[in-house]
């Protein structure tokens, strides 16, 4: 779903970044956030709401709404729409409120 050509914007070719979504290897590109990389791969459902278990994706894409929270490298409640994608990241759909681990 990446835009191939654009009349106004110059979309430079950028190096790919491999990462894992629910264990499956996917690729984003440099400059992606976690949410943008997932969206480019056709993944829209990012989490399930905490009580009603409704599917949720991002809504605002600027870190306001907390609708895009996911588990990233084991850490829950990461706002994926403003978190830069990094190579090898393990991203998972968040179900429930998540568990934390001491660092």
């Amino acid at each position, binding site marked *: 779903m990446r835009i191939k050509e654009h009349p106004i914007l110059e979309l430079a070719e950028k190096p790919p970044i491999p990462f894992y979504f629910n264990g499956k290897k996917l690729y984003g590109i440099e400059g992606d956030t976690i949410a943008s990389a997932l969206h480019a791969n056709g993944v829209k459902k990012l989490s399930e709401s905490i009580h009603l278990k409704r599917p*949720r994706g991002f809504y605002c894409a600027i*870190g306001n709404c907390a609708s895009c929270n996911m588990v990233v490298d084991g850490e829950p409640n990461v706002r994926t729409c403003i978190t830069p994608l990094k190579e090898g990241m393990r991203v998972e759909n968040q179900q429930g409120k998540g568990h934390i681990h001491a660092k």
Partner: protein
Amino acid sequence: MQNKEAIVIGGGPAGLTAAFELLQAGASVCLIDRNERLGGQLTKQTHMFFGSEKQYASHRGIDILEILTNALGKYGNKLEILTQTTVVGMYRDKVLACVKGDKFFKLKGEKIVFATGASEKALPFENNDLPGVYAAGAVQTLMNEYGIKPGEKVLMVGSGNIGLIVSYQLMQAGVEVVGLVEAADRIGGYLVHASKIKRLGVDILTKTSVKRAIGKESVEAAEIWDLDEQWQGIEGTERTLEVDTICVAVGLAPLTELLQQMGVKVQYVREFGGNVPVLDENYQTSVEGVYACGDLVNIEEASSAMVEGRIAGINAARSLGYDVENADFRIKALHHELKDLRGGPPGDKVRKGLKKLGVAT
């Protein structure tokens, strides 16, 4: 905690011009923006701006951004730019709590200019939380910042300038805009924008709204319906559009949380979609040394935001004791620019809102 002479929060059109004026006057500026790149909404604005040469009319937003950031360039030694930095707390002693990535830190500003802009409103309809229902700004971010299409077929909700412009931008990205619905009985934005998408085949339906999003894990269709005089949906007029994205562009609300945290006096102004700070003629809030400008103080076009940023910046610089060349004359001229920009029918709402705040227009 670091002490700063002047802190500008928000690197959009208002923040950039405020920072420029402060620097030009001789002040040191710490410019904070939560995004990777400065520019606020300018980074996504691929269309040409209205207004006059003074506000860079006929230049695209993305090109105006370049002009504004280049202008800051020559003050490199007095300018500190903190990008990907979010101000998360604002305390009464003018201490800002900031977050950059995993790091938390505090700054204290002698003068603070708020140019935090606005956030998009959400809309209550069935399954309004289904993935694929996106705010218009999110769609713009996705397309124009990350080069990603939000979907293949979109229903646009709202005919203000944002809804109209984003519809056009979607088409430029190769996305089909299946229709645009507007709850009011007429188009909200500039008619030139509306005509621009209509002649390319986008149906604009007034007195129509989205009833529900349909889909299991993401949007597969949208049901729209006609509205009656009381803005209520009329049973039996429902029809289904096959879309994978519903783009919500139903207006903006000023981002005044931080100001309110520090106890700045605000007033609810319906025309501006929420609480806005009460300002004096220098764009200073009820807290001494705290200024505000841009969409945060009234929802308007970026052209006006740039002018307001200059006024706030000049005044903040003067209050720091800097001599600003021709300050009185320039401020007068800037107020005149605002008056011009707000003088026509699109400015009706702004003038009405400002009147409620006791601001002469």
